[in-house]
Structure formats: structure tokens, C-alpha cells
């Protein structure tokens, strides 16, 4: 039996599929240096951290593997490779992927997110990649982004193909575009920067200066022109509409799943939910093809759990919103349940607050630019905080874990402001938790446990008092 068969079967691969994909699977594992011992470790971790009795979870795991194969082999299989940086201009990525779908000759995605999920969560083998990144201009101790250490390290190790084009959002984060520049310097690939400025004054979201749309639209059009000149890719109105529709179908299904997760008792762990939530971030390919089905399967399974009253924590457990789950460490994600907290929601699933009706922009670039503005995070620190605060008001939780990436400059710009503002706006108990979503060497689950336990105990005590009618 092939050394990977048991693992892939666990991840919902069919026997025929494994046989058909044999060469691709073996070549990917060869490039990544993954052998039988790694398979055993992955099986052990998957059984330990995920609800493998749920087919939807196993399907999600399988999608991550398929995305990994497509990513690692893209060049060898003669595909053009387009990367977008993290946090990704997702819709732009999806539209490019949709435009190139008929020929199936492009890989479009956010490679670092795929490596976090598979090499990090499943194989626990991300550290050598991070170390390679540290040796390449992202040294430890300087607050350099671990996501970028991961991508640049992997490129240098030869486990990621060099892209034909990298797309970087040039104004949200400073380090991402510099990492793109460094990548281009070392590997010779082209980079397109989407520039703008987060210069909206404090307190102005969702308003924006129309000149910002003009500027951003010009930048997006520059990218579209480059896609056409370099690859012959045309982003037409039809591609925009249909691409948008196809990904919205997936995200609506995720919202549907979330509706069930918010039951009491909470029926799904954060580690399991995260597998589905992040698919939309890292994968533009297999998610579009298979993600919708996986979410639907999982939704039915979760619905059944709700009917049966099954919970990953006892009924009545304090309910918290966590800003983001860990991308690499399922132990951290499960720890929240272990300390007695139900996690029915993350920031990504908050209901979007009401925004003014969109301006009747006519071009795709303008429409995309305006959507980025309304998303909050690409508007300003205030936009990000206000977006979050408004969503929080319509969500029933007992507390908030405002965890943030310590080496993400846009996050640390607003971390303390967020806590202060949200304290005042919502009055909810809030834990400001500095951590690393993409590297668990310095922020392991055990190093964060004491703080989470203390927060959970406080929420439990508060809830008990409230139930007594004292508070």
C-alpha cells in the first residue's frame, strides 16, 4: 500500500482518485520532503485535533491537500502561476481565477495560507520553512511577519514554484510589498502593486473620499492591463459578474453553516470550523470546484448534531467571539473549547454592518475599489474597528478574544485602540491577546493557556452570577 494512502483516505480521497493522482501525489511529497513518518504524524494529528467522523471535515482536509498538489506542481505541469499576497485582495484573485478557468492552465492563490494549513496544521513541519525565511531578510526578533517568512522561505527552498506574477496590495501592509520586492529581486518574477492610501480621518468610515476610488481603480486597471499584455487574460463584465456569483455562493454556504454553529451547545470546534473558513482565503481553485459541496455536507452533519443536542462544550458555556483562529496550530484552536469556551463565531463571519448604497460606478475597477473601501480594513484603522464593533453589536456573545498578529503592522496599529474603543462601545469583557497565527514557536497553545483559562473562569463566574440574578 502506498505510504500516503491511509492519510489521504482519511481526508476523503476516493481509492480511484488516489490511483489516478499517484504521480502527482508522490511528486508533491517528494518536493516537500514528506515520507512515511510524516504521514503517520499527520494521521495522528488529524485524529487528535479534528472531528474525522464528519465527512464534511474530511472533505475540507482533502481540499487542502488538493490545493497543495496544484500549488506545488503548478510549474511542472506547465501552468502560469499568479500569487496574491496576504491578506489577499480576495475578490480580485477569484475573478482572475474565474477568467482563467476554461483553460485550467493557471494557478492563482495565496501560497503561504496553503502551507500554513497543510505543512503547519497537518504535518507540523512548517518550522524549517520559517527558519529559511528568517535567513532571508526576515530575521527573528524584529517583528517580521511569519506569513512572509513562510512564503519567501518556501520559495528559496524550492518547494513553491516561482510565480510569473505576484500581486501585492501596496498600502494595507508595508512588509508584504517589500517581501514581494525581495522575492522579485531573488527570483526575477514580475510584481504588480495595487496602491492606495489609508488616509481617511479617524471616525469617517464608511464615508470615503471619491478620489481614493479613482486612484485605486487606476491601480486595478493597471493590473488588468498587465494581465492582458502578459497572459492575454481579459477581465470582462461577464467574468466579473459570474466570478463574483460563484464565490458568493460558497461564502453564503459558509454563512449558512455558521448559523448552525451558533447553536447552544456549540456543535463544532474552532479547529474544524477553521478548516472551512480559511478555504476561501487560501484557495481560489479547488474551493470553487469542491468547497461548496464540502460546506453543504458539513452543514447537514452539524444540523444533525444540533438536533441531537451534541456540543463540543456543555450547554450554557460562555460564548466568545475570537478575532481569528490560528492558521497553523489546531491545539490552540481546540484549547478554547478545552478551557470551557464555546466559539460560535470569528470576525470573518460577523454580519457586515449597513453601508450606504454603492455609488453607481460603471467600471469593474471602481466597483472593486469601493468594495474594498466598505470592507473596513482597507479603509482605515477606524474602519476596521467600527466594522467589527457594529457586527459585534448584532451578535450574542459573552466575551471577545481580540487576538492579533504581533508582527502584523496594520494589526498592531489598532490593537490597543480596538480594545479601548470596543470596551466603550460594547461593554463586553475582552481579552487582548498578542499571538502569532502563522508560527507557533513563540506563541504555543501552552504559552497562551493561562490567559485563556483566566478569561474563561472570569466569564464563567460572571455568567453564574448573572444566572443567580445578582448581576
Amino acid at each position, binding site marked *: 500500500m502506498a505510504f500516503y494512502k491511509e492519510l489521504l483516505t482519511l481526508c476523503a480521497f476516493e481509492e480511484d482518485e488516489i490511483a489516478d493522482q499517484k504521480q502527482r501525489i508522490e511528486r508533491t511529497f517528494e518536493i516537500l520532503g514528506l515520507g512515511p513518518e510524516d504521514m503517520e504524524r499527520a494521521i495522528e494529528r488529524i485524529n487528535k485535533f479534528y472531528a474525522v467522523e464528519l465527512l464534511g471535515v474530511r472533505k475540507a482536509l482533502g481540499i487542502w491537500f488538493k490545493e497543495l498538489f496544484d500549488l506545488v506542481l503548478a510549474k511542472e505541469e506547465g501552468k502560469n502561476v499568479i500569487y496574491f499576497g496576504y491578506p489577499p485582495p480576495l475578490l480580485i484573485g477569484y475573478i482572475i481565477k474565474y477568467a482563467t478557468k476554461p483553460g485550467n492552465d493557471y494557478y492563482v492563490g495565496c501560497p503561504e495560507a496553503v502551507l500554513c494549513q497543510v505543512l503547519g496544521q497537518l504535518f507540523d513541519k512548517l518550522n524549517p520553512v520559517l527558519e529559511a525565511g528568517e535567513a*532571508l*531578510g*526576515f*530575521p527573528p526578533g*524584529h*517583528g*517580521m511577519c511569519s506569513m512572509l517568512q513562510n512564503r519567501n522561505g518556501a520559495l528559496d527552498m524550492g518547494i513553491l514554484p516561482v510565480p510569473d506574477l505576484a500581486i*501585492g496590495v*501596496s*498600502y494595507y*501592509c*508595508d*512588509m508584504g*510589498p*517589500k*517581501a*514581494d*520586492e*525581495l522575492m*522579485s*529581486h*531573488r527570483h526575477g518574477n514580475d*510584481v504588480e*502593486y495595487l*496602491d*492606495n*492610501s*489609508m*488616509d*481617511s*480621518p*479617524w*471616525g469617517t468610515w464608511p464615508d470615503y473620499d471619491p*478620489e*481614493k476610488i*479613482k*486612484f485605486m481603480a*487606476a*491601480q486595478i486597471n*493597471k493590473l488588468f492591463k498587465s494581465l492582458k499584455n502578459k497572459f492575454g487574460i481579459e477581465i470582462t463584465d461577464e467574468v466579473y459578474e459570474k466570478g463574483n456569483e460563484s464565490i458568493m455562493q460558497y461564502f453564503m454556504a459558509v454563512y449558512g453553516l455558521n448559523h448552525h454553529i451558533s447553536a447552544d451547545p456549540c456543535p463544532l470546534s474552532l479547529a474544524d470550523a477553521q478548516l472551512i473558513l480559511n478555504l476561501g482565503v487560501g484557495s481560489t481553485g479547488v474551493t470553487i470546484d469542491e468547497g461548496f459541496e464540502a460546506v453543504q455536507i458539513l452543514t447537514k452533519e452539524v444540523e444533525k448534531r444540533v438536533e441531537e443536542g451534541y456540543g463540543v462544550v456543555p450547554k450554557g458555556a460562555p460564548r466568545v467571539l475570537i478575532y481569528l483562529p490560528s492558521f497553523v496550530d489546531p491545539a490552540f484552536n481546540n484549547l478554547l473549547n478545552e478551557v470551557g469556551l464555546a466559539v460560535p463565531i470569528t470576525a470573518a463571519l460577523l454580519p457586515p454592518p449597513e453601508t450606504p448604497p454603492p455609488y453607481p460606478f460603471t467600471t469593474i475597477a471602481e466597483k472593486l475599489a469601493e468594495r474594498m473601501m466598505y470592507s473596513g480594513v482597507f479603509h*482605515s*484603522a*477606524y474602519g476596521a474597528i467600527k466594522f467589527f464593533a457594529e457586527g459585534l453589536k448584532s451578535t450574542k456573545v459573552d466575551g471577545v478574544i481580540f487576538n492579533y498578529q*504581533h*508582527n502584523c*503592522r*496594520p494589526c*498592531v*496599529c*489598532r*490593537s*490597543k*485602540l480596538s480594545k*479601548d*474603543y470596543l470596551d466603550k462601545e460594547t461593554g463586553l469583557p475582552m481579552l487582548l491577546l*498578542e499571538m502569532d497565527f502563522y508560527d507557533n514557536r513563540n506563541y504555543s497553545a501552552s504559552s497562551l493557556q493561562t490567559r485563556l483559562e483566566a478569561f474563561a473562569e472570569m466569564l464563567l463566574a460572571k455568567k453564574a452570577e448573572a444566572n443567580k440574578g445578582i448581576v
Partner: protein
Amino acid sequence: METINKIESQLRFRLKELKQAKEKGKKIIGYVPGGYFPEELVIAAGAIPVCMIRGGDKAAIDASLAYIDRWLDTFYRAQIGSCLSGEDPYYNIIDILFDPLTDNSNRALSDTLAYHTDIEIFPFGVPHTKDESAHEYYLHGINRVKKRLEELTGVEITSDRLEEAILLCNKERELLRKISLLRQSDPSPLDSNHFVMMNHASMIIDKKTQIETLQAIVEELGEAAPNVKEGPRILLTGSTLAWGDNKILNMIEDAGGNVVIESFAEGITPYWYDVKTTGDPMKALAEKYFMDRAVPAWFRPCNEMHKNLVRLAQDFSVNGVIWYQLMIRDSYKIESYYFPEILKKETGLSMLTLESDYDPYETGQMRTRIETYIESIVR
């Protein structure tokens, strides 16, 4: 060089002068350094520009921790700390703070002060790429600044007033350029501490006074015999060289080095280009302040900065390059990783990278590294 010492005294008394001017109804206009704020607009509006360029104090860093995370650039943390602790009196007298937004560290200053203080904060974006749409956006930003200044001062910034202010600021740039270029001779006729002080003064003291002083310095330097000790010639570059952060210059000098040219994102006013005096003055300002000037490390890509540094190293015949950056300034950190290779290839020179968090404890180690570097380039 008596005149140089006058600058020190002008800087010392500037706060008092500003207070007096404010009492007489003058508006004091604060701005964040980086060379992207056209002081000409303030002068044309009959107000007084003053740059928030003080730094080097560890206490300000400590004070900032109550308001902002530690994972941000040292200089901007120091600004937040010194403003919110009330330790920097300049923040108490400004009527508005204009912040040309360059990167996230700078944006953190703008947001944190907007949230925690009553100071009116006016951010305007500086794009990170040089193309037509970016140029237009920068022009749009300075037009917004112009409008706000007119509202604040009640003075219309006419083309005539603006042209007059441009001529004044061009004169200052011309003099700084002239003085700087004198340092191409070997030995250089003045030390870097003095030249950096002139730069800081150009952002703080009255423009006409500064021009008179610089003019006198040019004349004195023309007459005086060089009195600077000989030693390896150094290009000092990096993120921020704040007013009060003299440690690095003193250490290089103590080690026998001689800084003959500086290039910083914040702290050295961009004096290499003048604003054109023909055509629309607002467009001319955008040309000079955004398109013409050499870019800092947070531009993408930043080949222009590499070329500029190589050119400065060659034009000023330096023997070595010292890269002095503050902690947690991403773009400089990444550039410091691969610029040495470019520098070596283009000039044969080596580079020493130093980082500071304004911490007195870092001095010993930094001194040893500088001494070793200076020794190595002498051989």
C-alpha cells in the same frame, strides 16, 4: 564657525518665539517629518510651520506603551509617548497636525493621536508607487491641505503668495545643497553633527532667520580653512535621524569616522531639488515633493533609492556606509538585507547595519561595532 553655534541658540529659544507668535494670533502648524509636507503652503497662509522631529528619548518609548503596541517603529512610538505624556511642549502649541501618511508606523501616530487627544489631525496620503495616478493623488492631498490651511488661517493662498513662499524655501534648499556639496572635498570642511543640526533647524526655526544663518555659514566656510580631522569618509543612511538622537553621529566621530553625507526618510530635509517657479505652483509642489525627490525604503519598488545611495557614495567618495535604522521599521529592515549586495557590486563598499530603540543599553554594543567597522575600512 561662530555662526553654526547661533543655530543651537535659535533652536533653544524657538519654543518661546512660537508661544509669543501664538499669543499674537499666529497659527502654529505642526507636521510629521518625511519630506512630503510642503512648508510653502503654511508660509503662504501666513502661519508658522513646525516639524515634530524630536526623538532619541527612551522615556518617550516607555510612555507610549500605554497607548500603542511595542511592535512599531521606534520614532513613531516616541512621538506617541512624548505627545501623550505631555513631555514634548511642541505638541501643546500646535493648532493642527498634518500627517503625510507614508507607512503603517506613521499611520499609527495619526490614529493614536486622533483618538487620544484633542489635536486636530489631518492625514493625507503619500502613495508608494510613482505613476500618473499616484502623482494625481498626492496633488489632490496637498490641495486638501491648502484648503484646510485657508480655512484655519482665513488667508487665501494665492499664486503670488505661494510663489513667494516657494522662492523662500528654494533659497533655503539651495544653501543647504551648497553647504552639503562642500563636503565633497577631502577633508570635509564641517562635521555631520553641524550639518544635521542645520537640517533640523530648517524644520523648526523661522525660514528667513534660517536663510540668513545659512548664508553666513556658506560665506564662513568659503573663507575658513578646513578644521575637521581626517578619517574614513562615511555615508550615513537609514530611517530616521531625529532631533536629539545624536548618539550615532557622536559614536562614529569618536571612532575616527567622518560622516560626509546623510540620507534619511525622516530627519534630513530633501534639499537636492528645488520647486519649479514656472507654471501652476501647486503642480510644481507635487512635482518636487513627490515625483522628483529620491524615494525612501517604503516605496515599491525601491530601485530609485538604491541608485541614489550608490550615487551619493560615489559623489562624496565615501569609504564606507553605515545604515542606521530604528527598530521595527519593516521596509528598512528588508532593504538592509539586500542593499549591501547592490552596494558592493556597484561601488565595492561594505555596509554596517545598526538598529536602535533609543535604549541607552544598546550604546556599548553599537560603539564596538562602529569601532570595528571603521578599523576594517581604514585597512
